[in-house]
């Protein structure tokens, strides 16, 4: 209807051409090419072109697994990492992490007879858990840099950034952490795509203080929502991480 806005979705069920045979895959640096496809979208209204968009995307699929050994040697596998932030000797869990812990760690652990009280200390005192990333089914050994420290000038042209990406590639690195979201800009993700750098993408929420929520939660969420929508097609983005040195606010979870 007039003024209507809605989500339109097309898949191989409606468009058989969207089933690709022998696709060129996107791989992290060192594991294969960084193949990309261009999708041109046009909407025609009464025969005239109303709007156009071009999207670059890569064909790839990530899967994740977190593994830890307990002090007694049991191997625990879970989907996502519970926080190991500790205050006064007690772990801090927000809603999101409580949910994850209950569903993915504690419940299976109880079922398997593991001492849950020990589980909580895995990240702090015992063997640190490790995150396993698979790209296109292949386990990836991730090595890379932690980018941040804004210089206040926002000099983020391709000419200025590309030498650093080339250095990363020639060092055999395949990962960049967008520390606290400092590099949340199109050219950063474009270069990560082109150079095969997996992105661990922080959001820009405060890293310090008392783990308080940001003061304007709605504004934060709107910025986060648009960031995901604008950049999610970049095949290099492997992890959306709520924040640095802390955990997601309840709304974000």
């Amino acid at each position, binding site marked *: 209807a007039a003024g*209507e806005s809605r989500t339109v979705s097309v898949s191989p069920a409606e468009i058989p051409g969207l089933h690709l045979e022998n696709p060129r895959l996107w791989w992290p640096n060192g594991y294969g090419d960084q193949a990309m496809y261009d999708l041109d979208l046009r909407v025609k209204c009464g025969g005239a072109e109303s709007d156009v968009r071009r999207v670059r995307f890569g064909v790839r699929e990530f*899967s994740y697994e977190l593994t830890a050994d307990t002090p007694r040697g049991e191997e625990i596998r879970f989907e996502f990492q519970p926080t190991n932030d500790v205050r006064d000797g007690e772990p801090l869990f927000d809603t999101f992490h409580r949910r994850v812990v209950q569903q993915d760690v504690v419940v299976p652990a109880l079922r398997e007879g593991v001492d849950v009280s020990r589980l909580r200390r895995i990240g702090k005192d015992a063997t640190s858990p490790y995150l396993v990333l698979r790209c296109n089914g292949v386990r990836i050994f991730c090595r890379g840099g932690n980018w941040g420290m804004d210089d206040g000038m926002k000099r983020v042209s391709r000419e200025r950034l590309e030498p650093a990406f080339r250095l990363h590639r020639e060092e055999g690195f395949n990962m960049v952490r967008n520390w606290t979201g400092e590099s949340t800009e199109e050219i950063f993700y474009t270069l990560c795509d082109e150079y095969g750098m997996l992105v661990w993408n922080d959001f820009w929420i405060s890293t310090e203080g008392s783990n308080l929520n940001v*003061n304007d939660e709605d504004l934060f969420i709107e910025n986060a929502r648009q960031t995901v929508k604008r950049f999610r*097609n970049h095949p290099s983005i492997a992890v959306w991480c709520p924040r640095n040195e802390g955990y997601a606010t309840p709304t974000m979870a």
Partner: protein
Amino acid sequence: SDDATWTLAGGWEMTDADRVVAEGGSLFSPAYDTSGWYNAVVPGTVLTTLVDAGVYPDPYYGLNNMAIPESLCRTEWWYRIRFDKPADVAGRRVWLNFEGINYRADVWLNGRKLGDIRGAFVEGLFDVTECFSDHNVLAVKIYPPYNPGIPHEQSKAAGRGPNGGQLCLDGPTFISSEGWDWIPGIRDRNIGIWQDVTLAYTGDVTLAYPQVVTDLPLPDTSSADVTVRMEMTNHAAVGRHVVLCGRIDGVTEFEYPVEL
């Protein structure tokens, strides 16, 4: 950048709000004198412009950081650009899009306030069809943070402190804007129009935020299902029958009818 989108990349000027008040006159008058304004670097920050203009040295080198005054984080700034209509606009909708400003801005075109933008990572999209003309003046007022913060060393008494952290009472921005306890605190260096500003023509129905999801039947990688989603909006006063056309690498083509 194509036959329907242009980037407003050159011709930006910038000055502090005090000068605008002192000089008087309308920013939107063709006769408005900007000879005392700086040539602005867009995209960039206020500091980028001031370094480019030679007001301050490049803070990246030596102790130049200390040459940037405290007042920078407490000053309001105006950006202004004049531009002519780039192509015939009859029957088309005209959009201005700010891909990123920091921290808060009011946006004006030809004397009309279009709205505001808050947060460094949201887009500011404005339908300017009604106030667009052959000769245009776009003005943007950029506000500093409510509280630029005071970095201090973490201690048992002070806690972890906001050292390097988010500016107080503000929305999402760059996190090291406050300063650190191991260098002199020079706060708020990131204010400005830090991403591109574009002008676009469309018809009544627009596309936004397309999403492409690729699904491999792992461990088999010999085929992939591609799903495409997008937000489609009808800006007209009546319903529209439209056709979504897609093409992947010039090979796979499809058409999909949509009623809005």
